[in-house]
Every structure is written in C-alpha cells, then in structure tokens.
C-alpha cells in the first residue's frame, strides 16, 4: 500500500465564494499534500483566492496570527514579492478566471501537533486576465491549537469549478 493516502476529495458545487475542507487533518499524519485543480470563476470576472485554516471545531480561524511570504512569477512582467505578518486571512493561493482557471499543490505540516505552529507551502500555476502566473509561497499559523482543515475563498467573484484532494504522508515506525 502506498504511504501516500487519499483522505478526502471535495469539489465545488454550485456557485460559491468559499470552499471549506474541514476535518481532514487528524493525528494519523503530520504532513499532508493537497492538490487543487481547475479552480475557475463562474463568470469571466477574474479574482484571487486566499486560504484560511479551520480549527478542530470546524470554524474558520480569523485571528490575526498568519504570516506569509511568496514570490509571484508572472510570464509577462516583473516578478513580485508578497509578504506580511499577523494577518487574519492567509496568502493568495492563486488567481483565476474563466475558462482558464488555476491549479496548485500544497503541503501542510504539524496541524494536529500542539507543540508546533501549523506551517504550509504551495506552488500554483494559473492564468488570470490572459497572464500566466506561478506563485511560490510559504505560510504559518502562529497558534499551537489543533487545525483540522482549511478553506479557499475568492474575494468577490464566485467559483463554480474546482477539485481539492487531500493526501496524508504515512510514516510507519518500527
């Protein structure tokens, strides 16, 4: 059996601004790999998507305890740096529009370890307003409480397509 275990698959249903993926992190794994594919806005209006963490009660964490640092690599113009500390919302995962959409791979570390903050990092590939961009980003939730999942939110332009898969990296001791 593979040590990469599929835990959950969640797809956008209808037209929504936020997709919540709660209760996917457990004490069975310390590292998670998440793939996001075909994240598309319902209309042609482009938008950015940001991430938040979800606590062990299923609530989105909104306290200003998120730090992030990312490099935006745009095919048609200069690269840019994006960084901030003590934010209530997480970093931009990607931007997207319709019909091109966005895709990303993410890792989460230590979400159920009460001795460590929860860390994440991701890389995306997207087309927004006819410009290709890849974002490489790291992030931390500066809380040692339990984190059970995450949410993805478009600011204003709803999405009607997108699939998120969550995998756990199994470690077999002994």
């Amino acid at each position, binding site marked *: 059996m593979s040590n990469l275990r599929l835990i959950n698959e969640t797809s956008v249903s209808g037209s929504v601004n936020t997709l919540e993926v709660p209760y996917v992190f457990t004490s069975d794994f310390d590292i998670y790999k998440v793939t996001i594919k075909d994240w598309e806005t319902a209309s042609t209006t482009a938008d950015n998507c940001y991430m938040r963490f979800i606590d062990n009660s299923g609530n989105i964490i909104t306290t200003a305890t998120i*730090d992030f640092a990312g490099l935006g690599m745009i095919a048609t113009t200069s690269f840019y740096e994006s960084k901030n500390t003590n934010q209530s919302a997480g970093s931009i995962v990607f931007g997207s529009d319709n019909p091109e959409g966005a895709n990303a791979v993410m890792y989460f570390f230590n979400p159920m370890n009460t001795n460590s903050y929860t860390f994440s990092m991701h890389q995306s590939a997207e087309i927004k307003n006819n410009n290709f961009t890849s974002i490489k980003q790291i992030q931390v939730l500066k809380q040692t409480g339990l984190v059970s999942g995450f949410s993805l939110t478009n600011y204003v332009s709803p999405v009607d397509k997108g699939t998120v898969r969550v995998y756990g990296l199994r470690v077999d001791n002994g």
Partner: protein
Amino acid sequence: MGKLVQVATNTVTSAVASVTLTGINSDDVYMIAMNNIVPVDNSRNLFVRVTKSGTPDTTSNYDVAGKQLRTDTTFSNSASTNSDKFLIHFNQGNLTGEANNIIYYLYNFNSSSEYSFITFEETGFNSTPNLMGNQGGGVHTVASASDGVHFYMSAGNIASGTFTLYRVV
C-alpha cells in the same frame, strides 16, 4: 498520482547529533519529507550531506541555488559552490511553536555515472523569529552512487524532528 513507498524513517524525540537515512538502491526518484525539526540550540543551520555506502561524503562537491522567502526583508538568493555540505537551511529557531518543515526530491542518486541532484522546499521559523523558507535545488558533483542523506546541525544536536525517505513509484 504516484505511490510513495517508505524506505527509512527516524523520529527524534531526544537529542541526537545527526540523522542518516539510507536505502536508496534503485533508479527511481526518491522523496524525503521532514517535519517539526528543531535544534537544541537556537540559531543553528541544518547541514546536509549525501552518503556513499552509508558514510557521509565530506568532499567539497556540493552546489546549491535557492531563493529565500521570508517575511522580514527582501527575498535573497542563496547560492554556494564546492562546499563540503549542502548549505540550504539556515538560522533555525527553537522557541515555542517554531519548527522547520522540508520536502526534498532526490534524482539519480543510485547512478554510478551521474551526479546526485536534489530539489528542496522549506517552510519554518528562523531564530529572530521570522517565517523563512529556502526554495531551490542542489547537486553533488560526484559521478558515483549515493545511497542516502545525512543531516546534522552546525553546532549542537537535533532536538526533534521526523525524517522519512520514500521511493516514488
């Protein structure tokens, strides 16, 4: 998505000087996943070497190029050539909640005629503390087979961390 087959793992729960993962014996790509790595002493670099028949290679044949993402200042380039170790993970913090977390992919390690390449992604806290993570790649410019990877701190011991080597199939 491909499968991961665990080859070796080491979870540090009491301080140790180093961690060595071996068992690379095929031409597959390998992956190392690391989490919750904390040094005993604050502000230490995590050094990395490849192993030849289980022994760390100390010759000056390690090259690295990466981009340091960080919250406190402009991102910097991180590059070195002909070092006696991979210089990738800097200024590790050990305060409450802080830890370093890393993903490697390993290429051509089993080849006796090609160099050993790695790619790395890192997210963690430095000792300031600030969020920081190096993203890039490296190469050990010796055309001989490597069977694993050796980790140690620039000074002092490793306090905690889980290091796991997988084969990607």
